[in-house]
């Protein structure tokens, strides 16, 4: 049996409410809240980035796994906001958590799917037996252009998973990927903000791939939606994952626990991994969880996960995702928000 031996989510404390963004642009906040099913989003602190978020999440994952970090054989970080253009985020992370230097490191990119890519490869390494433990992280400090619809959702956070074959808390039973060339959302080299194709990001992109991967996963595993306690779908906004879940045959109560987007926003590469963590935080032995990510460009990874008896032993060894969402929120106004996100031009030092 191979799968998750430890997980950890990190949620920044700063928030901005939909009303504060809409008020700045003369937009109808109530309409945005209804349309996106979202109240507020996380904002990274001035001293936070994908690296610091990854370190915090990885430390929580190590605490749950109860392992010596030097036994981690690889560290893969999926993000579209790596702080460096040339220098892997993972080099800093492994030295901060004490996993180096005997550790394979790479940064992954695939829009919002990069986190599950990192999980997928980490899982494959332990399943093949080439290493004892493998670390896969999805983290982002995503950006939306001022006034763009993305500004209401693009947020910050991340989740780390340690995969292994001993003391497995949640077995990865099966995986499935579904990918095609679909230009729904992109950012070319040197551009600060991403571009998107508006409504084209819906049916041909998000729903085609999320439903394609989910249905493929169910068919491959021989399972039905009713066999799962929880299901998590990538959360670009509040509405899409609920619609995709219902179209795939899942009930509202299966979707709610991992649906963190209304309080967190879209954490891009950290989105579906963080939804999964919120489910693992409360799961019982024997519970099955289905997770399907989505990355623009476009593709989806789907996982069938089954919790073991060990899950109850490690849930309380690190902060739960939803506790962090509720804990010590610090609200920013729009002026502070744009300063925190580097959206205004300041005097050079």
């Amino acid at each position, binding site marked *: 049996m191979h799968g998750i031996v430890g997980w950890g989510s990190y949620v920044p404390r700063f928030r901005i409410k939909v009303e504060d963004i809409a008020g700045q642009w003369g937009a109808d906040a109530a309409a945005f809240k209804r349309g996106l099913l979202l109240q507020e989003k996380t904002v990274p*602190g001035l*001293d*936070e980035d994908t*690296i610091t978020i990854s370190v*915090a999440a990885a430390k929580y994952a190590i605490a749950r796994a109860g392992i010596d970090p030097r036994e981690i054989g690889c560290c893969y970080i999926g993000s579209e906001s790596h702080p460096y253009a040339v220098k892997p985020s993972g080099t800093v992370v492994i*030295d*901060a958590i004490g996993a180096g230097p005997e550790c394979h490191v790479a940064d992954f990119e695939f829009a919002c799917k990069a986190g599950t890519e990192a999980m997928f490869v980490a899982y494959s390494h332990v399943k093949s037996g080439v290493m004892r433990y493998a670390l896969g992280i999805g983290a982002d400090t995503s950006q939306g252009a001022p006034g763009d619809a993305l500004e209401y959702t693009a947020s910050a956070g991340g989740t780390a998973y340690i995969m292994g074959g001993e003391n497995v808390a949640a077995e990865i039973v099966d995986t499935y990927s579904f990918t095609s060339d679909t230009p729904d959302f992109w950012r070319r080299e040197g551009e600060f903000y991403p571009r998107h194709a508006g409504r084209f990001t819906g049916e041909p992109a998000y729903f085609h791939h999320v439903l394609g991967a989910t249905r493929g996963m169910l068919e491959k595993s021989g399972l039905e939606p009713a066999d799962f306690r929880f299901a998590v779908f990538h959360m670009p906004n509040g509405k899409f994952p609920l619609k995709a879940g219902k179209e795939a045959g899942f009930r509202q109560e299966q979707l709610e626990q991992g649906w963190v987007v209304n309080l967190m926003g879209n954490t891009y590469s950290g989105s579906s991994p963080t939804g999964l963590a919120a489910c693992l935080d409360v799961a019982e032995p024997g519970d099955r969880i289905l997770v399907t990510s989505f990355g623009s460009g476009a593709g989806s990874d789907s996982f069938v996960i089954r919790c073991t008896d060990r899950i109850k032993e490690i849930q309380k060894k690190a902060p739960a995702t939803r506790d962090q969402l509720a804990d010590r929120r*610090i609200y920013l106004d729009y002026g502070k928000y744009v300063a925190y996100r580097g959206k205004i031009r300041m005097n050079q*030092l």
Partner: protein
Amino acid sequence: MISPRYHREIPQRYRLEAGRCADCGEIHFPPRAVCRKCGARESTTVVLPNRGKVVTCTVVDIPPAEFDDQKPYVNAIVELENGVRLTCMVAEAPPDAVDIGTEVELIFRRLRCGREWEVLQYGYKARVV
């Protein structure tokens, strides 16, 4: 800070690695080549606990230019659970949230961005528990 010095200090800044004197057991943070208590030159590496209390603190209203966007912020001397003291910035805290005795944890944060072409620098800060 130039890259070679930053690189040398990674063990202490990233992982809170201190030196324990092999003779008298005194803990030095950052590590020292010679024990300040007994003069011994041998030491072993120990990792400091990441929880402690504020011994004293000050509010920085007029910081160096590169920290101007973070003002006002709090700098504190923190005594960790094993008695070792260190100085650091307190993240996320409005000045009135930090006082003598405030319980804090040490967290990993970006310390300096510098100019666009410079290396990013990371290390520990405190955060109110």
